[in-house]
């Protein structure tokens, strides 16, 4: 049960933090249609987070350690500390330019698509139901971000160079997708992470080839987010995200 709670929180934190980053583009997108696109993706990610947080809250409240104050989706999002957050490191990195934002969404969405397919086949009915709902949205995210990777990679000299810089910034954060934490192995005994990684790499290679970009060689990969060891960026995100609830506890509107 504890492992399932932690895993649900890991999924919820990951989509919440990525949503929080993408939301920084709200009203700053390169053109109106793309501003709307990135914020729509943000909304999908927040919706997915809410489903995972609600599930985690239900499990926490059912478990023996339940405290007087029941957990809610809000308490889980607003009142947990940096070390308690289990999001993937790649989601908390600063947005950088549009190329960097696009590439992160592309890496993440292709990974998430494969993972959600697996969750649908898993033994936990609620995770499977959330995955069934989410994968339809993720399909759009993959399509949209792939098209942008191709457009920028195979675009101008400037956009091509920006994609190369983005690959340089993000590549070492992609390994964490496929290095399972203890709780993941426990909750997902049926998932072959190496197979998930090969399928991901195949898709990345296909799109990169079309985008005239090269896939970097295997290298050192950053880890830590899944166990609560974060970059210096997460603290700032949470300060922003949690400011209101910490200043005015229990505030509602």
């Amino acid at each position, binding site marked *: 049960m504890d492992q399932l709670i932690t895993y649900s929180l890991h999924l919820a934190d990951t989509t919440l933090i990525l949503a929080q980053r993408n939301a920084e583009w709200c009203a700053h997108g390169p053109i109106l*249609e793309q501003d709307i696109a990135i914020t*729509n993706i943000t909304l*999908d990610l927040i*919706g997915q987070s809410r*489903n995972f947080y609600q599930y985690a809250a239900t499990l926490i409240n059912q478990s023996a350690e339940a405290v007087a104050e029941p957990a809610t989706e809000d308490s889980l999002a607003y009142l947990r500390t940096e070390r308690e957050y289990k999001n993937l490191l790649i989601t908390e990195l600063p947005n950088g330019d549009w190329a960097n934002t696009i590439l992160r969404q592309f890496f993440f969405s292709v990974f998430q698509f494969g993972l959600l397919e697996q969750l649908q086949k898993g033994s936990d009915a609620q995770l499977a139901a*959330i995955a069934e*709902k989410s994968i*339809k949205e993720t399909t759009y995210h993959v399509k*949209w971000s*792939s098209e942008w990777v191709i457009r920028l990679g195979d675009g101008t000299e400037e956009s091509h160079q920006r994609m190369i810089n983005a690959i340089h910034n993000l590549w070492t954060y992609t390994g964490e997708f496929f290095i399972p934490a203890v709780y993941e192995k426990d909750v997902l005994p049926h998932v072959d992470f190496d197979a998930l990684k090969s399928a991901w790499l195949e898709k990345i290679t296909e799109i990169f080839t079309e985008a005239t970009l090269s896939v970097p060689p295997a290298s050192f990969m950053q880890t830590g987010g899944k166990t609560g060891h974060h970059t210096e960026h997460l603290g700032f995100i949470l300060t922003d995200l949690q400011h209101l609830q910490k200043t005015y506890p229990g505030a509602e509107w």
Partner: protein
Amino acid sequence: MIPELQTIWSLLEEVKDPEVPVLSIPDLGIVREVKIYDDLIEVIITPTYSGCPAMDMISMDIRLKLLEQGYKNIRVSYQLSPAWTTDWMTESGKKKLQEYGIAPPQEKRVRKMLFDEDEEIICPRCQSSHTKLLSQFGSTACKALYQCQDCKEPFDYFKCH
């Protein structure tokens, strides 16, 4: 169908999608089931998209509508699986969308494959099929933005999902 169930379904016809007010929630296909217990009415709905901001408002509107008719004990529950699809939208719902100027979902099957050919969408104003996609993401999560190449009008398309 027992008469009271019939009554509740017809009351639900009066609850509209706040983002597309010509559609009732049964038209939209999000009411999965209505159950009547001794003194409790349960309405089970499913979200269109995970982050659909209209869901909270819709469940409040259901509650208000039933309270208004004298029902006191009402429960609105959410069900995620099976996931909502535009296939559940009624034919009359599709017609209302069309008249409202939004192209209704035009495919029968849900696509999950990546990189399909872009679909040919019919302009709701002049019925031309000579249209182009401006953005996969439109004014709400469930819509995409198109433009008609003949009458030049931009229009919303209610995406197949």
